[in-house]
């Protein structure tokens, strides 16, 4: 399989973060679970990548893989992860651990379960800071209070001694962000950062993350199944299906000129306010594939409405991730480019835009 990398501005400089053909497989009694099967992308500091896909498409596993959080015994990891010129897959556990939390940090989905219930919010931030910085507890505590203030927690000098369960959902996610930011990481991965939150709070958290990213000039990966979040934050979008990238491009391209039938499905299943109530959502039929037994050929073919038009290729050949159009837009689909364009323009787009 060819490695696919987005075009570089300067060929002599390597990107800040680069994945090359990353594979994370878990051998089990029932077979090999191919959670991530050949993922490649790159990301610069100050930029945001949105990784989109259904549950079980390999989004979270790939992010944990970047951080090196996997059992070396249980997981088979191959490929390369380059962080600022350093390769992580071949690095020792200790080396990666030293980078974790310091240069790359993660914001988790459900802050209530992701924070330890027995330690105060402050203690957990202090711990994250003191792992990588040899400072006194007093200095670390001051730092924790500053961070809590920065992420918008009122009365941070008092709330620092509260336990996670004493925080509201939105505040917990703010505290989680503060914890991730404690060592000024250059790479921040947010795994469904707003899924567990109220809609009103979601917007605040997204605003906060955008502000912080600009302030710290960090590279941000947002993992989500919510295209709205992606539209809000991402510069580039990577759509995952069955452990593979099936479409990749700038956010504008993905939203205005999507090329993969699965991406069309994702867009169609997004509720919109500007549509008449009578308009139904267009769910993607079927269920996500089992990662043990990925359908042969194009993994999406059993659910694809246009599989017939590939002349049988859909069941036999795994499509390559190929450039389509200009500006680095890539898609993994057997449909000829002109056919795809036509379907998009004539069938899908009018539908998405509603009767209006």
């Amino acid at each position, binding site marked *: 399989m060819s490695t696919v990398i987005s075009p570089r501005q300067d060929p002599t400089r390597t990107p800040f973060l680069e994945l090359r053909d990353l594979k994370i497989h878990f051998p089990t009694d029932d077979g090999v679970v191919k959670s991530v099967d050949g993922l490649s992308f790159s990301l610069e500091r100050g930029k945001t990548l949105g990784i989109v896909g259904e549950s079980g498409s390999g989004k979270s596993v790939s992010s944990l893989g970047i951080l090196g959080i996997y059992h070396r015994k249980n997981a088979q990891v191959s490929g390369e992860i380059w962080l600022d010129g350093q390769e992580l897959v071949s690095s020792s556990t200790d080396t990666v*651990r030293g980078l974790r939390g310091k240069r790359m940090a993660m914001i988790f989905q459900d802050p209530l379960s992701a924070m330890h219930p*027995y330690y105060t919010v402050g203690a957990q931030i202090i711990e*994250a800071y003191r*792992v990588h910085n040899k400072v006194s507890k007093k200095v670390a505590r001051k730092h924790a209070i500053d961070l809590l203030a920065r992420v918008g927690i009122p009365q941070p000098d008092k709330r620092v001694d509260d336990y996670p*369960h004493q925080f509201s959902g939105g505040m917990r996610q703010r505290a989680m962000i503060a*914890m991730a930011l404690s060592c000024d990481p250059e790479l921040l991965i947010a795994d469904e950062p707003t899924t567990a939150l109220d809609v009103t709070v979601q917007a605040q958290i997204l605003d906060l993350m955008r502000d912080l990213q600009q302030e710290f000039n960090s590279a941000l990966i947002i993992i989500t199944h919510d295209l709205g979040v992606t539209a809000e934050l991402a510069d580039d979008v990577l759509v995952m299906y069955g452990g593979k990238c099936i479409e990749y491009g700038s956010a504008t391209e993905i939203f205005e000129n999507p090329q993969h039938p699965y991406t069309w499905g994702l867009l169609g299943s997004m509720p919109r306010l500007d549509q008449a109530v009578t308009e139904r959502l267009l769910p993607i039929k079927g269920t996500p594939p089992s990662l043990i037994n990925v359908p042969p050929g194009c993994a999406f073919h059993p659910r694809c409405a246009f599989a017939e038009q590939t002349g049988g290729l859909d069941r036999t050949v795994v499509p390559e991730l190929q450039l389509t159009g200009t500006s680095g837009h890539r898609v993994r689909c057997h449909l000829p480019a002109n056919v795809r364009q036509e379907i998009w323009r004539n069938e899908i787009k009018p539908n998405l835009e509603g009767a209006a």
Partner: protein
Amino acid sequence: MVTFIIRRTLGAVLILFVVSLATFLIFFGLPRLAGATPETFAARYVGKTADAQTQQMYAEKLGFYDPLYEQYGRWIGAVFTGTEYDYGTGVEQCEAPCFGYSFRTNQPVWEDLLDRLPVTGSLALGASIIWLLTGVAVGVLSALRRGSFFDRAAMTGALAGVSLPPYFTGLMFLYFFSYKLGWTAPGATYVEFADSPGDWAYSLILPWITLALLNAAAYARFTRAGMLDTMGEDFVRTARAKGLTESVVVTKHGLRAALTPIITIFGMDVGLLLGGAILTESTFSLKGLGYFAIDAIGKQDFPQIMGVTMFAAFFVVVANLIVDLLYAVVDPRVRLS
């Protein structure tokens, strides 16, 4: 928190009251339904060979002719304020807490209990420390190396440990370590800790191991299950994402959470044990509370039975109380306003 403590303490007192009432009814009420007469009770005290007149006299003196509620009132009154006994040969003063006198030996029950407590206490203390440390350590290692040879061997051993009764393992230990190898004295008698700490430990080492084996096996299984649960929790993943070393992740984040239920069981087990480890004490002829209880029941010495039951109930209730309070210390979410 203060109201919580007061409420739980009142509850504990109520439980003890109910236990005392129930025990009293079982031993002083039920026999009457089964046809026992006040004279039968007196006969236990003065002996069956005594003539009817003596039996009646003592039944009168000990108040067996009074209604049950009066007898119970007298019993519980004596516990709190003490009482006087008039045996005809002179008035005997029984200080509070007075649990009466043994039917057989005429010894004050309370003093007997206090005499036995150090034996059972020493046994429980040593054994509980051994089983907590080994059980938790084996459980943690098993969980971390799930499916490994160590895990399988430990869990098979734990199953055997849980299944084997102390009178079997205890006798096996005695046979091998005392008679075959001569490492420990067979039938060692209990030595006070204050007299000689070395001899104290030497006299108790086999009972400790016997009792600890039984519980360590159970604790290893509890700990293993708890660790497998918590190590899969999101907060453990967060701890790893911070870049903490694996040992900190395991102990500070995983084990800390897994230990909470262990503490609960541990507190109750120790409380239960302080009321007497009947099988282990009998196996090693340790004259502790368990031995005392078996003896009292076998001889139908009602004042002793009442006393040892209340004693055991007291420890269980207090252990529960401590566990509840400890829970609030360990788990901040329990600290209710």
